[in-house]
Every structure is written in C-alpha cells, then in structure tokens.
C-alpha cells in the first residue's frame, strides 16, 4: 500500500519516488516505492540491515548504476520535478545538484582546501577568488571554518574522524546542491562528533533537502522531520517522525521500533 499520501504536504517535493522497483542484475531489492522528500526538510530512512536503504538513497543520484545490470526496472524517480532517467538528463549535472556523504568519512589525501574545492574544479571553476569564496562558504556551513581557516593547506587525513566527516559534508555542499544524501553519516563517530553532525544536519536543512540513512532510532527522532521505514525492500510506513515513532500504524513498524523484531 502506498503510504505517501499519509503525510501532510505544503511544498512540492524535491525528491519523489513513484512506484519504483530497483533491481541488481539477479534480484529485485526495492519494490514499488512511493516516497517524497520535501524542500528544507530532513527525511530519515530506517529499517533492518539489507532492507535496501542505501539502494534507495543511491537511486536519487543514480550511483547504483555503476554496477552491471543494476537499474530502476519500474516507476520513476523525480528530482526537482524532472524524471532523472530521461535521456536528456546529464548525470554529472544531476550529481552536482544531489550531493552525497558516505558512511566512512573519506577525504582525499589532499589538502583541506583541495578537498572542498574538488567538486567545483570538476565543474570547471578555476578562478581563485570564486574557489576561495566557495570553500569558505562550504566550511562555514559545515561549522569548520573557525577550526580550520588557518590550516587550509594541511592534509585532510590529519583531521579527527568527526572533522573529516564534516569536511566531507563541506565537500558535498560546496557545489551548492539542492539535495544532500547521507548514508549512515555518524556510524563511525563517537557520541560527541555524532551530536555535532546531527546539529549540522538540522542547520543544513535550512538550505538543503536532507535525506539520510540511520540505524539509530534516537537519531532519527532527534534530527528528522519525516521518517520512512523499509523492510525487505518495501516501504512499510512513511510519515511525520513524531507520529511514526509514537503511534506507528503498521504492526511491523511497531515491532521494529520496540526491538521485538524477528
């Protein structure tokens, strides 16, 4: 049953799944997903391991299609009102506007500056002042500017885990995307760094549309406006976070949230 109608909508969705089936070469891992993420809202994806959260997330910037035979076999994904599988969609432009942060922080072994400037340089920006500007803006947004402004030429690998992850966020937002996808962004961090990132995510929601995957229920409650619960590739429930956690409509959701899941 498509639960997308259950959440109240005022703004047009920035990301919208319409009946999406996704398959890797041998098997289908997402079934008939209807989901939408609104502008300037944080949407959390939760569910047991292997249920397809990462796959769903990576559908939005078509990162899954690197694998042979992996494709959306049914339905459409819309980003900013455009079907991203249309033939006139340029993958590089799509990915410029849909940033992604990975589970493991993975800065390039280059300077902090070069890391943040990477996306811009790829998209042809060479002017020093524009780059400087964008790097500062991105680092400020990622609450790193004060810490790092004096050592932009330092190798990014020398930063702490939390700083590295925030640097990766800065790198992803330097190209000024509309959507920010985050796949378990805090799973490798200690509680304090996690809190910083969570705060950051809420701040980022002012400018971006954030969709993130988490295994941490409290995190979903703390950070997200909407929560989607997936199970075995199906979207079981999707709605207002508070509503979903306090008053789940589906039995499956309830047992998952209670931890009495089999």
């Amino acid at each position: 049953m498509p639960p997308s109608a259950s959440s109240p909508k005022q703004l047009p969705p920035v990301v919208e799944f319409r009946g999406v089936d996704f398959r890797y070469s041998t098997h289908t891992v997402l079934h008939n997903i209807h989901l939408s993420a609104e502008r300037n809202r944080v949407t959390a994806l939760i569910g047991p391991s292997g249920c397809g959260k990462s796959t769903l997330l990576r559908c939005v910037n078509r990162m899954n299609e690197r694998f042979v035979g992996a494709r959306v076999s049914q339905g459409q994904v819309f980003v900013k009102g455009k079907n991203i599988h249309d033939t006139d969609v340029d993958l590089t432009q799509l990915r410029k506007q849909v940033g992604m942060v990975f589970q493991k922080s993975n800065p390039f072994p280059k300077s902090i500056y070069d890391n943040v400037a990477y996306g811009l340089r790829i998209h042809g920006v060479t002017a020093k002042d524009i780059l400087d500007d964008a790097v500062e803006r991105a680092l400020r947004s990622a609450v790193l500017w004060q810490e790092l402004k004096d050592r932009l030429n330092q190798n990014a690998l020398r930063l702490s885990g939390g700083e590295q992850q925030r640097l990766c966020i800065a790198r992803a937002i330097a190209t000024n995307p509309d959507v920010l996808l985050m796949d378990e962004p805090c799973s490798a961090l200690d509680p304090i760094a996690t809190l910083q990132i969570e705060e950051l995510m809420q701040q980022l929601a002012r400018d971006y549309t954030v969709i993130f995957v988490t295994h941490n229920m409290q995190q979903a409650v703390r950070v997200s406006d909407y929560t989607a619960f997936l199970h075995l590739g199906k979207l079981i429930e999707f709605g207002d976070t508070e509503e979903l956690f306090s008053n789940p409509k589906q039995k499956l959701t309830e047992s998952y949230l209670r931890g009495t899941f089999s």
Partner: protein
Amino acid sequence: MINTPIQPKIDPANPFVGRHSRNQTLESFVRWVLRCGTLVIVSVTAAIVLHIAVKGAPVALSREWPFVNVAFLTELPSTLHVIQDNQGHIIETDVNGADAIKMELGANLREEKTISYSGGGILGPIVGTAMLVIVSVGVALFLGVASAIYLSEYASHGTFIEMVRLAILNLAGVPSVVFGLFGLGAFVLTAPVFTNSPLDRAIFTLPLGFTTLSFQGWDTCVLSGGFTLAFVILPVIITASEQCLQAVPLEFRETSMALGATRWQTIWRAVLPFATPGILTSSILGIARAAGETAPIMFTAALAFKDKLPWQKDQISLPADASLFAHWEQNIQRFLAIFTESVQALPYHIYTLAARIPQNEYSERAQYGSVFVFLILVASLAATSIWMRRSLRAKYKW
C-alpha cells in the same frame, strides 16, 4: 575401547621440559634446509658482486681525485695498441699514439699488439643505453599505463578481459630473443615513415599528396631498439600499474563520481595522483630490465662498434645566423635525427668484449670495467626506486 590420549608424566620441577618427538626433529630439519637455501643465494650473489668489484673497480675508479677514471667514462671505445720495447717496457696507447711511439723507438721495438674495442672508454655504450632506456620507458609507460587504466577502470570484468590479462602475463614469459626478431620484422623493416622517396623494400606505400607514408621500417636505430625494449618491459609495467591503480580505494572513485565527475575526471584527479608513485617506482625496475637486455637490441639498434656519438653525424647545416629558435624546424629535425642513429649499448658491448674478441688481460680489463659501471648504474636505479617508494609512501598514505 576408545583411544584415550596417553597422559605423559609431568615433571613437577619443570612442566615445560622438551619432549624429543619427531615433530621437533622435523622442525629443526626444515629450518636448516630453508636457512641453507637462503645462505646459498646470499653467498652466490655476494660472490658475483665481489668478483666484479675486485676486477672492475680498479678500471673504473682511480686512487687520486676525482676518484673515478674520467677517461674510461668520457671516451669512446677504440682499439688498444700495446707496444713493448726491447727493455721490456710496456706502453699502452691508441692508433695515433702508436705511430709516434714506434717512430721514436725505431729498432728498439720488440712487438706491438692490438686489441680491438679494449682501449679508450665506454662513453658510446653508456650514451646508447641511456637513449634506449629513455625511448623504451617513455613508450612503455605511455602504452602500459594507458592499457592498465583501460583494463582496471573502464573494461567490464568478463572472460575476454581475463584472457587479455593472461595474454599480457604470458608476454612476460616470451624469450627476449623472440622480441628481438619481432622488433627486426616490425620496426626495422616495416614500421611506417614519412618520406618523399620511398625505398623499394617498402611493403606498402600510401601517397598522401605532400608526402608518402611508406612502410619501409626505421632501420637499425635507437627508435627501433627502444620500441622493441618497450614491448619487453610492457608486461611488467602493465601488471604493476594495474596493481597500483587497484590499490587506490574504491571510495575515492565513488566520492568523485558522486560529486559529478566524469570517469576520466575521476581517474585524472582522484585515482592517478595516488597511483603514480607506485607506477613510477615499478617502472624504475623496468628501466633496469630494459638497460640489461641484449637480445632485443642486437638486431634492432646496437652495433658492436661505432666511433661516433649519435649527434656527431654530419647534420643538415644551419644558415650562419642560426639561433636556437630561428630555425626550430631544422632544430627539431636535428634532434629527431639523433634517434634514428644506431648506437652502442652497454650489455652488447660487454658481450662483444667477452665473446667476440680473443681474450687476454687487456680485453678482460675493459670487460670488467664495463660490467662494474653497468652494475653501479643498475644498483643506483634500484636504490632510487626504493628511496622513492619510501618517501612517496609516507606522503600518499591513506
């Protein structure tokens, strides 16, 4: 009854007292076999190096400042004349010196010996080998890195690609004399050149209007030899480059692609910079291999004897006002002409000295001197490689 393990009696004073079981004997036996094997290798290597050092160092080095035998490194090989007078004095000299000395000695001359290739120095072979290495490593790096990038980054993994890999590995096992013959057929006799007057032996000519593309080969020259050597070291370079590319974490590529980079941008900015140190390191070992091969250059580039350096040929003469830039076309032509010359090469020179001329103390001296210099060159390449690997590892760790 079930087999119960026999409980040996335990000595309360030392519960860990050794038991002389078969296992222990085997253990020490295996250890000694392995140790001896290693020792044999180490001692043989040491013996070779020592032998060469003892015999070659006195030739290439000298007791006084600058502690190297400058003439040996800066002169071309020539015929050595050894003149002995009736008092038993021995004078070593070259052709020109020989006449003057004989004149001076007059009737006092007892005998004169000539030993080919053993006089002068080995500048010619050093220069030739350097040029061959430059061409071959340039060509092999370009082809090798290109195909390694294709194999590891672009090609989808299937049976065909696996077969290509297997073929490349097999290429490494081809005897080098086969590469020599291949080079003779492919580069010396058939490779295409632009010329206005194609030779009759050209297999195929393609008139282009302003000039003709003639498949007449490049002749015996640095270019032919360098290309042949490139194919000898290609498997090494491809395999090593592929390993280096694969050692770059997959996440770098994913991150780059997720930021909207095309595949080539990703390779250029997020993969190659981190693979380059390794690629360069392993290609230095390729240099050592290319420098040492004899068979591939025997038919394609090397001469036993040549009394001129590649750039000492009669060149297209420049007008009087020649400055470096005014006649860049001619200058480029003159530069390229260097590579269409045949050369001497160190390994081939050593072979000539050791096997193609009658052996005596003078030829042996030249021979060990060359081997010593050669060994030093290869050893310093290997040292550079190790040093580079160390310093770059430290810089590009992730």
